[in-house]
């Protein structure tokens, strides 16, 4: 899969990051962090539904759901004290929103590595986003099987 087949929102995010210098990439990640959508009401009282992403050192939780039309939505929560993790979650939550399961499963596992963040935040940290993407796909596979 290349830029022409990557889901539009994720492709655009990548272009946005790569167009910036290292320092501005951090600012953009912070913007994403601030834009992480609130958890829908129905999950707020059911934290048990959310899966903790152990790869991240901060308490970040994700939940992938399929709506009645069979489209994907990813919900995530991470504390304000973990803006980097929130930023990663926000990129994925926004990028996966409304995709078909096939489109999500086809997202390259190394998408997080392609955003130009390795130099800006370090490869170790970017791996947290890789863990999140892997878990989102695994949850989706479980929903499809279930």
């Amino acid at each position: 899969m290349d830029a022409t087949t990557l889901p539009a929102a994720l492709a655009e995010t990548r272009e946005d990051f790569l167009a910036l210098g290292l320092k501005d990439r951090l600012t953009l990640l912070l913007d994403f962090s601030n834009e992480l959508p609130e958890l829908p009401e129905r999950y707020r009282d059911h934290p048990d539904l959310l899966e903790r992403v152990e790869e991240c050192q901060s308490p970040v939780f994700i939940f992938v759901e399929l709506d009645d039309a069979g489209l994907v939505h990813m919900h995530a929560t991470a504390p304000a004290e973990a803006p980097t993790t929130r930023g990663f979650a926000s990129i994925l939550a926004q990028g996966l929103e409304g995709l078909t399961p096939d489109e999500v499963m086809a997202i390259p596992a190394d998408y997080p590595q392609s955003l130009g963040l390795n130099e800006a935040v370090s490869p170790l940290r970017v791996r947290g986003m890789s863990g999140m993407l892997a878990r989102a796909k695994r949850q989706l596979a479980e929903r499809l099987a279930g």
Partner: protein
Amino acid sequence: MPVESDPAAKLAEYAHPERLVTTEWLAERLGRPGLVVVESDEDVLLYETGHIPGAVKVDWHTELNDPVVRDYLDGEGFAALVGSKGIARDSTVVIYGDRNNWWAAYALWVFTLFGHPDVRLLDGGRDKWIAEGRALTTEPPSVTPVEYPVVERDDTTVRAFKEDVLAHLGKPLIDVRSPEEYTGERTHMPAYPEEGALRGGHIPTAASVPWACAAAEDGTFKRRAELEAIYRDEVGLRDGDEVIAYCRIGERSSHTWFVLTHLLGFEHVRNYDGSWTEWGSAVRVPIAVGPERGEVPGR
């Protein structure tokens, strides 16, 4: 020393009280000439969301490491970095950060490799400062770059390499990772693609003392008597011991290095920054699995 030590009673209990300051002390001295406040966090964006007024940011991962070699900056790189942050050789540097000062302690340890004379931690770190409702700003500080001398790193006093650890086996070792990492269970769990070592477990004979054992509920260091109970009574450390601490990549263990060196006064403590990511993948080094410390292997 350009800025006086914090005379707080709690700090006076420690072996080197001049290495810690309280939030009250710092709040009263912000902006004092000769004092530079540094924020060093696990989260690379946290500083931008709000920091202590005037504080500069040092990122442990992207700034203190050499970009090519798995090592720290050299003398020139360090001089350029800290000089650009307005830190002179005679500055009093107070470092604070998130997560019980885990990364702040790491930055302090790296400053120690370069022998920076006066570097201190803010007891309780970022969280305590915020919990007390003290000032934060998103305003970037106005920094005047200064000349910092080129000082070569001393890798012999507070730093241990793999070979040093092999030669050290039989003397006290402290593994500060989580119990699951210590036993070796963690890297064997499915669907946990962590930054991995090839094997799970610990260095034979190492005692398991998770780093957070040294922190109180509010993120400050525990009182000296509580720390003595952990490291002397439970672990069995004694005066004069040579100790090596390690974790996964050397950050959590610099927190324990700080506790042993500056709070308890052990004089021969080294941090093995290669830690488990190196040891667990290295050829021809012994490991131990399970909850027992394990034996010194025959040589």
